[in-house]
């Protein structure tokens, strides 16, 4: 895996940014089938939606400490719904696979592109179309959706808000997700470089593989469920309406049959990023490679059978509840295996605490809190107490934002030099991380306390005894937002003013660090021949 340089051009000039294609200007990007360009467009879109989602989140926190001053009750319902829809469907579910997966999957397995480059471009278009439809539902006549991001029936069938349009948007996004999964699975099966055996694949690739199957299998269930919602609203078909022979509980089942595996669509690639970062920054081979691989596959498969834990209080037989609770405990085991392996990788390592590692370590800490509180809400008796409270809100923000969000930022800092060929300021990145990390815990840990005390979620005006911790939580949201502003200003200024990055600034051992930063148009001059496992080979330059 030696670094290969281009013969007569500098790495900058031969990068994919300078490739001349059929189109120019914006179309050179929109019509491109280059996985790197598609990945970057996804990244731009994701981060734009993320910033909108965060702004809405800060608005929710503001409204909660002064109900009525900024938003009225209906607007509050709309804002938390749109916050959820944007962060879940437009940012975190597509998130890591479409941005980093697109950019790095082919490079990491030694390929020139994904298996179906044009299908890849179609997924981007579908994503943009889906996002546009969701956005349209906010602004056209009628009200923005006010059902919560879960679109629970029967309210989603009855409300006058623009639920049909939002649901259609999510449906289109679902197809984008299915095609991405199909493309990645095929790419990993078919496009590996000579010698890149299954157990020589970088762990990020393995998690994309497991995620791909979940996308292919689970997303159709969401699609059909959303079709039923639209049929109910437009044609009055009563799948979920008891007065017409339907059943609202059925909606909850169908929805969570997709939406719980979707948690693993988000989390598995996040775990993949951490598995890349830990060996690089501790200068060690990953501890327990195969255990991490099999735990990813175990999470992806067992994750299909735990959806009932979202519905412990909805009306299920005790047998079903006990079984779902038990399987929920089972799915915690492979996650525990991973955490153990990451920590063990650090042991006796030559650790360099650069910003990607800081974010990765924060991931382990926050994801562990999210996971362990998941066991609390996954057991039947405590679930009755905390169901529908801020405890749940805190729990899933620790998993999704503390887990996937931090991992996304870890990946962004880790691969930034490779993607853009520029270095950012380490110092500013760490300052940003500090505010973000502290703000995050102040914001969401208070919610655990509020939830334990019984504060119900989704209330516009919480009872006065919860005011104190609500204020603490809101102050946390300001710190968090400040951290994000520092982090992204640092990255944006690095895009324009950052010093040029070498091909391997961190000393990573996987294939992407063996090619110039930013990578050339088709990644490799010659397809590399792989003769060893993925980690522990890189030299910092």
């Amino acid at each position, binding site marked *: 895996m030696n670094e290969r340089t281009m013969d007569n051009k500098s790495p900058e000039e031969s990068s994919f940014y300078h490739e001349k294609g059929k189109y120019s200007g914006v179309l050179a990007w929109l019509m491109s089938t280059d996985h790197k360009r598609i990945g970057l467009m996804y990244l731009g879109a994701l981060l734009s939606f993320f910033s909108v989602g965060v702004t809405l989140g800060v608005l929710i926190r503001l409204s909660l400490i002064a109900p009525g001053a900024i938003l009225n009750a209906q607007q509050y319902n709309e804002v938390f719904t749109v916050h959820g829809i944007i962060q879940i469907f437009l940012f975190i579910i597509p998130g890591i696979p479409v941005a980093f997966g697109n950019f790095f999957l082919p490079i990491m397995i030694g390929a*020139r592109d994904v298996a179906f480059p044009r299908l890849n471009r179609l997924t981007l278009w579908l994503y943009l179309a889906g996002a546009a439809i969701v956005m349209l539902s906010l602004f056209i006549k009628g009200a923005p959706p006010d059902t919560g991001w879960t679109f629970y029936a029967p309210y989603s069938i009855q409300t006058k808000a623009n639920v049909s349009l939002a649901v259609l948007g999510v449906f289109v996004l679902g197809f984008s997700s299915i095609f991405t999964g199909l493309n990645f699975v095929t790419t990993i099966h078919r496009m590996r470089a000579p010698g890149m055996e299954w157990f020589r694949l970088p762990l990020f690739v393995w998690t994309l593989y497991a995620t791909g199957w979940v996308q*292919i299998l689970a997303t159709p269930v969401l699609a059909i469920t959303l079709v039923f919602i639209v049929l109910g609203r437009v044609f009055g078909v009563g799948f979920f309406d008891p007065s017409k022979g339907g059943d609202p509980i059925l909606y909850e089942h169908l929805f969570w049959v997709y939406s719980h595996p979707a948690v693993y669509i988000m989390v598995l690639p996040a775990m993949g990023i951490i598995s890349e970062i830990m060996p690089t920054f501790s200068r060690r081979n990953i501890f327990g490679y195969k255990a991490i691989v099999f735990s990813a596959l175990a999470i992806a498969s067992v994750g299909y059978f735990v959806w009932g834990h979202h519905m412990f209080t909805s009306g299920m037989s005790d047998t079903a*509840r006990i079984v779902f609770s038990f399987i929920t405990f089972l799915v915690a085991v492979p996650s525990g295996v991973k955490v153990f392996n990451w920590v063990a990788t650090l042991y006796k390592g030559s650790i360099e605490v650069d910003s990607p590692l800081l974010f990765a370590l924060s991931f382990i800490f926050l994801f562990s809190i999210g996971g362990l509180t998941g066991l609390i809400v996954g057991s039947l008796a405590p679930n009755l107490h905390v169901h529908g409270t801020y405890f749940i809100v805190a729990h899933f923000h620790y998993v999704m934002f503390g887990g996937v969000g931090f991992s996304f930022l870890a990946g962004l800092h880790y691969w930034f030099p490779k993607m853009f060929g520029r270095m950012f300021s380490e110092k500013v990145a760490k300052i940003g991380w500090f505010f973000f990390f502290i703000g995050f815990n102040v914001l969401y840990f208070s919610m655990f306390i509020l939830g334990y005390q019984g504060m119900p979620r989704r209330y516009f005006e919480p009872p006065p005894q919860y005011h104190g911790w609500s204020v603490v939580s809101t102050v946390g949201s300001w710190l968090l937002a400040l951290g994000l502003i520092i982090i992204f200003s640092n990255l944006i200024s690095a895009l324009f003013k950052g010093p040029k990055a070498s091909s391997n600034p961190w000393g990573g051992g996987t294939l992407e660090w063996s090619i110039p930063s930013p990578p050339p148009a088709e990644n490799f001059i010659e397809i590399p021949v792989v003769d060893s496992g993925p980690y522990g080979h890189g030299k910092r330059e």
Partner: protein
Amino acid sequence: MMSVLFPSAAFGHDEKVPAGPGIVEKTGATIPPNILFHDENGATVKLGDIITKPTILSLVYLTCDHICPQVLGGLAVALPGLKMSPGKDYQLITISFDAHDDPATAFQKKANYVKATGMSFPKDAWKFLTGDRESIERITDAVGFHFQRDLHGFIHPVVLVFLSPRGVITGYHYVSRYQYGVEYPVTFSAAELNAELDDASREVVTLGVTKPVLYCFTHQPVGQERFFNLLVVTGIVTLLSVAAFFVYLRMTSRRSGS
């Protein structure tokens, strides 16, 4: 069989008879004293003769396996917390609105719920009455309780009726909350029952506050089975095609990486 509890708005205090099951409050009206029922021992009793104290009247059907047992159970465990003593200051009457129920079943149920109170309970303080269709219609009409026969039982509202010693309806207590998964899903607050019995003893009539009331009903939609079959078929087809895709990827040769 699936039972679903579904809150719905209670009917207000007007004379409109609802099309379906529900409550039309008759507060202030007097129960006709001459309605005949059988008590749990099989003896014939006249309603006017047994209503001599403040009375909590509940209307259920004895073969119900949904919310009716929960209501009576919740009521039974609330009784020890009351200020008044049963049999002396107040009594309970449970009337079955299913004409097929007989005194033998009533006897069993009574033993069950009296035991559930966990206190020494005078024999006559809780009566379980059954009767013919005509008597049932008279009492349910008198208290404005409308029910409907269904495939697997009855659809009916869940409510307690408070009667004064002279048989005047002094108030209704709607059951509007069902806590899933706990030992007693339906609970009654002793403070509320105390106040309502106190009103009944003094014959103070209180108008019902419009409050969501729970209905007891069975729910097994006819189309559900076909729908599930559809889901099973599409699910299996999806799984098979995904499995075939996997086998295809594994069996055919790898394309060159370029």
